[in-house]
């Protein structure tokens, strides 16, 4: 099952999104929040993200959802620090963080491949709200 990591500058946001997506996903779905700094301040921490990616991985790859630009920088750094095998199995989605995570969690929890989970996350950009 593809694991999902949610990277936000805010711990509350990352946790909240994981909780929301978990309600739509199958029970075993890995949804790991990597939000805020270790001291609780706003920001992103590449080591925290790296640990979350490792925790989310169960062999089928990891989708990482990010909020703002600097979360991408920290996530790319986190990915660079992974060992080569896992590195090739991690994708940072170019997708809205909340909408993409919810859609991707549904897809991942029914056992879809990383490619298809990423496509679903990125497809969430096109979901219409009204």
């Amino acid at each position, binding site marked *: 099952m593809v694991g999902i990591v949610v990277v936000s500058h805010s711990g509350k946001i990352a946790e909240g999104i994981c909780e929301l997506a978990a309600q739509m996903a199958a029970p075993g779905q890995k949804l790991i929040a990597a939000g805020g700094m270790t*001291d609780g301040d706003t920001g992103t921490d*590449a080591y925290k993200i790296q640990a979350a990616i490792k925790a989310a991985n169960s062999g089928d790859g990891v989708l990482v959802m990010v909020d*703002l630009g*600097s979360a991408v*920088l920290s996530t790319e750094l986190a990915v660079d620090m992974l060992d080569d095998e896992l590195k090739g199995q991690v994708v940072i989605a170019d997708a809205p963080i909340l909408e993409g995570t919810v859609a991707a969690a549904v897809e991942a929890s029914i056992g879809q491949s990383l490619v298809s989970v990423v496509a679903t996350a990125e497809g969430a950009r096109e979901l219409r709200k009204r």
Partner: protein
Amino acid sequence: MANAIAAIEALADVIIANKEKLTELDAAIGDADHGINMTRGFEAVRSKLAAVEQLKDIGSVLKLVGMTLISTVGGASGPLYGTAFIRAAAVAQGKTVIDIDMAAQMFEAAIGGIKDRGKAVRGEKTMLDALEPAYEAFTQEMVKGESLTGCLTLATAAAASGVEYTKTIIATKGRASYLGERSIGHQDPGATSSYLILATLTAFAIEQEV
């Protein structure tokens, strides 16, 4: 390693002293935290350096700095400066003194790290607008046979002009890009901290020479 550590201590002092200034600059075009971020980072660096047993070379000092900034700065500047220090550390691995050639290589590696990480180019209103002209000035003087401190002094002057230049351009990378044209007229906080780092290292090198 005492010198390298002392240089980092000097950086920490200057960053912390400019906490408000950097934060104010970021308030105008970003999220008002660059000084806070950098201060949190360099305070952590300071305690790490105080706690660590023995660092065998300059590379180890810089790697520790980079890794600490990565995990404590929080903003875009964290992975950017973190990567810069770690790339410079690779050049300085096994070294206990820095000569002018090595300084140039470290400088180049650091900028390369920032570019790889941030995918920005000069003119996007980032730290690169201070660092790239500074590096150019450095190497230009180096080929003319200038001393390390001479090169650093001119590099710092170029960084200062680069900071001024950021006032005239539109931000297209980082948070300031949300403002589009309205970012014109404001000085980039990251370029400013880059200038401060360079100015501090220059002053430190001059002091060492005396």
